């Protein structure tokens, strides 16, 4: 037993390690965490997949063997004890019991005594020894010893069930080389036989990512950094995948409408599975495990933020790559994900509430020199500080937080207003006009000073259009005092605002029916548009993608499990509970009564193998009952 306990301690420690050290992560994460040396050390010890480590399974096997040993050694003894009644007791030994009573009797009768013992749920045997003394041996609660057999047998059965599901056979096959883990991305037809597992594989837990409308007949069994292909006895098809949401926006259920076709019989089963109701077919259970985008089609408008061009169209699909040339530069787009629902804390009335702000799509953009940024752009504008903005997040690495580009929505809630505005900024004629008007407000009579002023404003605007506020900040003479610099900067900002205002006024006078800028006061819009334009220089991309339309395609992540050990584990569990109950709640009591031939008194002795507090009272009770019956 000590060996078993040591083994259990090892299992305990290994298990704890397994919880603290995140299991089954891609190896690069471990290298980053621990450095090369410790990474290799831990890998050799199998700590990244503790529970499948060879030594862990070995400990389990030892445990089973040692427990079986114990059980097989002790069970015959226990079962024999069950029948024994131990009638050869001596008076002296009975008197030495802790619970021993000498009870005087007036009229003794065996039948009455037996009846009393039976009423107290004892089983008894009686015997008259060679001296003529009557000995009654009684016991109850010896089910309790059975509890020991039950519990330890249960542990063995559960462990065996667990091992059945522990793909030991696969491990053996890996050792002998008949099966080899695949590490490369291969097409199904290119997978060698050593990488394929047959449907007869005893137990497995494999994954399948199924796109809406797709069918698959094999699953992927992840192993270390690679995988095996697990053949299935049926073909799984996905008709539709749905996420239903609560009114708060949180996911309510994930459902997949599956069609499963048995390969041999051709029998079809249609079932909708969700997280708590899997489908079992042919000994394999299919679970709703996760979901991904399945290749949503995107219809995009491409806006060049630094020209007066109108938008162009781009169509793409998630997981696809696009190439685009802007201003003689090539950009490579990788569309990675589409999310139909985004739950963010948005102000509603006075408070911030989690709201569904609508779809977003995530893409990586690489320029010719290889630098890449990741973007997440939302389709619809969001309300912030009482106004609506189109939001696009940018980050240089996945570890960083997104920084956000906010472009104000126009009076119709669309992005056209901003895009018009930036186009106006890039239209030299209109810009000149606007500047003239601004200059005219300060110098209504013209003159030389107004000409100088005009050129100054032109310079400021040109700087702003080329590089935003920071560009003009650089042009401020640093030899001036800080206060003077600040004054100049704020006057530049004011001028730019005034020009912006005039740009819009000019546009509106040339397009009388337009309502794009029909705000109560377009002051804020102009301010935010200028800010947005300035921020675009930090956006890392001269292009803003507007999502106009999409066709949503989803993939359902399924887990397929074949688990023959499950039955044994459950059986063992029931046995375990029964066994624990017996061991703890059933108390074995042994009782002897000796009536010597020549003695009027009877000797009563009781013992229990678990000394319990209530046993004192129980013994007393029996002795008093006997006293009462015979007196």
């Amino acid at each position, binding site marked *: 037993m000590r060996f078993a*306990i040591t083994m*259990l301690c090892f*299992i*305990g420690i290994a*298990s*704890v390690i*397994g*919880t*603290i050290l*995140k*299991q089954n992560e891609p190896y690069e994460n471990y290298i980053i965490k621990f450095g090369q040396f410790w990474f290799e050390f831990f890998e050799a010890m199998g700590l990244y997949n*503790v*529970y499948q480590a060879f030594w862990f399974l070995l400990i389990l096997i030892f445990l089973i063997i040692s427990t079986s040993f114990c059980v097989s050694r002790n069970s015959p003894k226990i079962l024999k004890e069950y029948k024994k009644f131990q009638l050869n007791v001596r008076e002296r030994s009975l008197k030495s019991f802790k619970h021993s009573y000498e009870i005087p009797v007036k009229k003794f009768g065996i039948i009455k005594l037996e009846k009393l013992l039976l009423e107290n749920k004892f089983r008894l045997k009686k015997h008259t020894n060679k001296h003529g003394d009557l000995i009654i041996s009684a016991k109850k609660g010896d089910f309790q010893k059975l509890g020991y057999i039950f519990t330890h047998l249960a542990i063995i059965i559960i462990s065996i069930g*667990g091992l059945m*599901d522990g793909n030991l056979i696969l491990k053996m096959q890996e050792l002998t080389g008949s099966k080899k883990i695949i590490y490369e991305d291969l097409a199904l037809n290119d997978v060698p036989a050593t990488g394929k597992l047959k449907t007869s594989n005893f137990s497995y*837990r494999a994954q399948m990512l199924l796109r809406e409308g797709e069918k698959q007949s094999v699953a992927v069994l992840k192993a270390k950094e690679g995988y095996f292909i697990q053949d299935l006895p049926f073909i799984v098809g996905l008709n539709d995948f749905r996420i239903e949401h*609560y*009114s*708060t926006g*949180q*996911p*309510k*259920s*994930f459902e997949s409408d599956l069609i499963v076709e048995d390969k041999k019989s051709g029998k079809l089963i249609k079932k909708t599975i*969700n*997280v*708590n*109701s*899997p489908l079992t077919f042919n000994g394999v*259970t299919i*679970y709703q*495990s996760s979901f991904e985008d399945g290749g949503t089609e995107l219809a995009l408008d491409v806006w060049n933020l630094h020209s007066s061009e109108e938008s162009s169209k781009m169509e793409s699909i998630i997981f696809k790559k696009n190439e685009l040339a802007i201003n003689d530069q090539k950009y490579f787009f990788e569309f990675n994900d589409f999310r139909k629902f985004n739950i963010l804390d948005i102000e509603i009335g006075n408070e911030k509430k989690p709201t569904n702000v609508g779809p977003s799509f995530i893409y990586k953009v690489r320029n010719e020199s290889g630098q890449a940024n990741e973007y997440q752009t939302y389709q619809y504008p969001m309300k912030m500080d009482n106004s609506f903005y189109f939001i696009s997040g940018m980050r240089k690495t996945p570890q960083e937080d997104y920084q956000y580009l906010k472009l104000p929505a126009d009076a119709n809630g669309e992005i056209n207003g901003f895009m018009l505005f930036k186009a106006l900024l890039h239209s030299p004629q209109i810009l000149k006009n606007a500047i003239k008007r601004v200059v005219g407000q300060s110098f209504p009579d013209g003159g030389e000073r107004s000409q100088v002023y005009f050129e100054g404003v032109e310079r400021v605007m040109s700087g702003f259009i080329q590089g935003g506020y920071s560009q003009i900040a650089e042009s401020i003479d640093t030899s001036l005092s800080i206060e003077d610099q600040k004054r100049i900067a704020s006057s530049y900002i004011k001028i730019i605002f005034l020009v912006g205002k005039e740009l819009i006024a000019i546009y509106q006078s040339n397009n009388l029916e337009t309502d794009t800028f029909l705000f109560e006061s377009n002051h804020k819009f102009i301010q935010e548009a200028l800010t947005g334009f300035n921020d675009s220089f930090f956006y890392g991309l001269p292009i803003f993608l507007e999502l106009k339309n999409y066709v949503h395609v989803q993939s359902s992540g399924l*887990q397929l*499990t074949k*688990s023959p050990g*499950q039955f044994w*584990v*459950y059986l063992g*569990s029931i046995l*375990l*509970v029964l066994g*624990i*109950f017996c*061991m*703890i*709640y059933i108390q074995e009591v042994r009782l002897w009564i000796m009536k010597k031939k020549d003695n009027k008194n009877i000797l009563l002795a009781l013992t229990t193998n*678990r000394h*319990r*507090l209530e046993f004192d009272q129980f013994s007393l009770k029996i002795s008093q009952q006997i006293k009462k019956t015979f007196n």
Partner: protein
Amino acid sequence: MVFKQTFNYLFIVSMLMLPALGLFKFHQYMDYYEMFILVGTGITFIWMSSYWQNFRYLVSSVLVLSFISIFLYEGNLFSGEEQFILKYFLSSQSAIMWMCSLYPLSLLMYWIYLFKKQSFFGNFASQLTWIATTMGFVGLLVRWFESYLISIDVGHIPISNLYEVFVLFCLITALLYLYYEEKMNRKELGAFVLIIITVAVGFILWYTFSKGADAIQPLVPALQSYWMKIHVPANFIGYGAFAIAAMTSIAYLLADKGILNSRLPSLIILDDLTYKAIAIGFIFFTIATILGAAWAAEAWGGYWSWDPKETWALIVWLNYAGWLHLRLVKGLRGPILAWWSVIGLIITTFAFLGVNLFLSGLHSYGEL
């Protein structure tokens, strides 16, 4: 005597009628397992109250108060903030706040009783514990109702997140303690058991006021199952019992060192109570872990994934199995087992709380 008998018969009748009524009214919203659980609960309550009269009173008062609360809501969630009785007593948050105020008070009373030994304080403390437990259960039942008022698909039994199960922990621990208090007819241990309950109350208050954890959230898909109704309560009977065992062991260790030993029950009694608590905790914890495995097999694709929560449950199980082995097989008694039981609570707390907060896995249903 007659009153008591009539009450008992009425109780049995209601424990059969109420589930029947529930089935009749709501059967289209329940699957077979849930119907079975509902009927089984009624029968369990009948069985439990057959040997514990006070349990009858608890169930009856909880049901009466809860139904009054439901009635006062008049189908409108906002009544909870407008109607006077709801606002200050019977809305789920108010009831739980009452629970939170009365447990610490009863802890104080138990300590006064421990020192002054006047039965008034002991009885008062005991009564306060009963009332606090009643209010806590009312709070949970009304919360269950309130979740349905928010929306039909949001409604669920309130044992689904860290906040709710902390309340459940207080209630089950208190209930188990009250049972032992009555059986042993000794009130001194209240001073110890109520300590851990008060700590839990402290956590509940902090969690409520600094994180707004009392807000009712809808169930994530993985939790939408009848299994939650049996796996979670079974687990908390286990946790509650282990908590009582640890507190009793602390009392044992103090008495063993001569502190308070004149006021506490004898070492033998303390030792025996520790054993009884660990025994019942162990059975329910075993059952709960098995139920958890069966649930995982339906939801996650396997009865055992070596998820941190599952693994730590195994460690807790092995810990107490070891404790019981030493006691039952080796006959060990005394301070070693007492220390072990206290350390067992630390391990259990990590499995209960630490795993959710510090380790990630499939089981992270409560984060700070």
